């Protein structure tokens, strides 16, 4: 179980190498992700998040260092093999919908990898059930909400039965309800299959659900650790341009005015729980 599914080793990437004045988008970055983990990669705009996503699936190759995925070094040759075990969902729900209908879109990756027809039908159905979109087989993309489209995109990735799912800002263009739908889907998927998930986001509420958080700033890894630990360094995060989750900010503010709260609260429910038992525990 405890095998490494993806690792970066001293990775540096610069967009325009010739130009000395351009700073590297990713600088000397190392990290590794275990099978079955949920990792959140957070950082504000320009912190190198999207570049990291592109390095993960071989859209870009590092100039220094190496990227390994599924136990293989990322090269032009191993690229397609690695990609077939790695699902990826992007930011804009419309621009990643290739098929004319939901089922065509889910089948797209399967078609590309030459999966036989009978197998495809089974997998498309299965993947759509996993994201609760099985009733929408023949729907066209413009009749779906943003959240539904993203769930279809997740199904499209799941149909390949990947070992790793990367969400590149997958919830950032959605309304709160769509965001909830997608996050809920991921949680259930994780519970059911133990899929490894990397979510790249600037939403710390989403990141709070992960097992481990990597905070990026200006192409470098700033912080790494469990959400509780990372959030404890409250001000540092705020300085990096990240918004703490509401419940955490509330906790900090309550402390400032002298309410002696016990823990750090990742979710509103936890905070509420402490608050309503606060008086009796004293």
């Amino acid at each position, binding site marked *: 179980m405890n095998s490494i599914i993806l690792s970066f080793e001293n990775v540096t990437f610069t967009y325009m190498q010739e130009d000395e004045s351009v700073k590297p988008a990713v600088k000397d970055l190392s990290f590794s992700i275990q099978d079955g983990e949920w990792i959140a990669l957070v950082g504000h705009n320009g912190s190198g998040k999207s570049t990291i996503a592109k390095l993960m699936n071989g859209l870009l190759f590092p100039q220094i260092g190496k990227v390994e995925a599924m136990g293989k070094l990322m090269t032009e040759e191993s690229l397609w093999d690695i990609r077939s075990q790695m699902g990826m969902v992007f930011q804009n729900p419309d621009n990643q919908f290739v098929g*004319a209908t939901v089922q065509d879109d889910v089948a797209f990756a399967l078609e590309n990898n030459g999966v036989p027809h009978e197998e495809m039908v089974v997998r498309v159905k299965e993947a759509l059930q996993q994201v609760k979109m099985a009733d929408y087989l023949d729907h066209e993309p413009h009749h779906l909400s943003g959240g539904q489209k993203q769930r279809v995109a997740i199904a499209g990735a799941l149909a390949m039965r990947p070992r790793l799912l990367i969400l590149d800002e997958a919830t950032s263009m959605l309304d709160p309800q769509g965001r909830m739908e997608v996050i809920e889907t991921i949680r259930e998927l994780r519970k059911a299959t133990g899929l490894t998930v990397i979510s790249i986001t600037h939403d710390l509420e989403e990141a709070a659900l992960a097992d481990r958080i990597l905070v990026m700033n200006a192409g470098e890894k700033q912080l790494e650790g469990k959400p509780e630990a990372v959030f404890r360094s409250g001000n540092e995060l705020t300085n990096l341009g990240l918004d703490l989750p509401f419940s955490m900010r509330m906790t900090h503010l309550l402390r400032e005015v002298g309410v002696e709260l016990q823990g750090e609260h990742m979710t509103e429910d936890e905070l509420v729980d402490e608050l309503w038992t606060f008086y009796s525990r004293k």
Partner: protein
Amino acid sequence: MMEKMIFGRFIPGDSLIHRMDPRAKISFVFVFIAIVFIANSAETYGILLGFTLLVVFLSKIRLYFLINGLKPVFILLIFTFLLHIFFTREGELLVDIGFIKIYEEGLRQGIFISIRFLVLVFVTSILTLTTSPISITDGIEVLLGPFKRVKLPVHELALMMSISLRFIPTLMDETGKILKAQMARGSDIGSGPVKERIKAVVPLLIPLFVSAFKRAEDLATAMEVRGYRGGEGRTRYRQLNWRLIDSLSLVVLAGLAGILVYFRL
């Protein structure tokens, strides 16, 4: 006006024609277009018209709906009809009112050409009305399959077509949004002289182009990540089903051609 136009629109249904294989339907239409030109007499044109009406009936698309939707085409039809009537000067003189002279041959030609036109428009409309654009694309891809040998990028063409079809509503939405955004900034597209109106379209088109290119780039990335490497080694999710009815339709068509040739001899 756009809602009424049925040119290129697809009406989902469950008729015999709807359920036919797109390959059969496309081949049928092409062969039919050729056959129409065999007809040269009242009987043969009558048969063609009857056959077409039968096809319309089988497609369960209401004739009224079809005629109503093809109104712009009828203007063209009447125009050609009149052209033939007034400018063919053969046969017996039928009407002679001052400068208007209508000859028998002119009337005959006018009617024949109109029927030919009508029949062609009806049958091709039935094809697009009963076949979803994506099925048509599938059909074309398979039918053009043999041309892969001469290096025609058949798969790529079909994929291009299906992606364009898929993005039509998305880009329509986008156009609407840009239009509203420009209107909110005081741009006036609906009125003024033609020159002004054309000028007003430019700030509409440029943002649309920019966003279309952005979308294309995103889409290309998404496709690549999902393992798209061109047509080689790809399997197809959509399967086409050639059934007895499809073969039968082509047999019937051959029969029709036979009858028309017989009358002509």
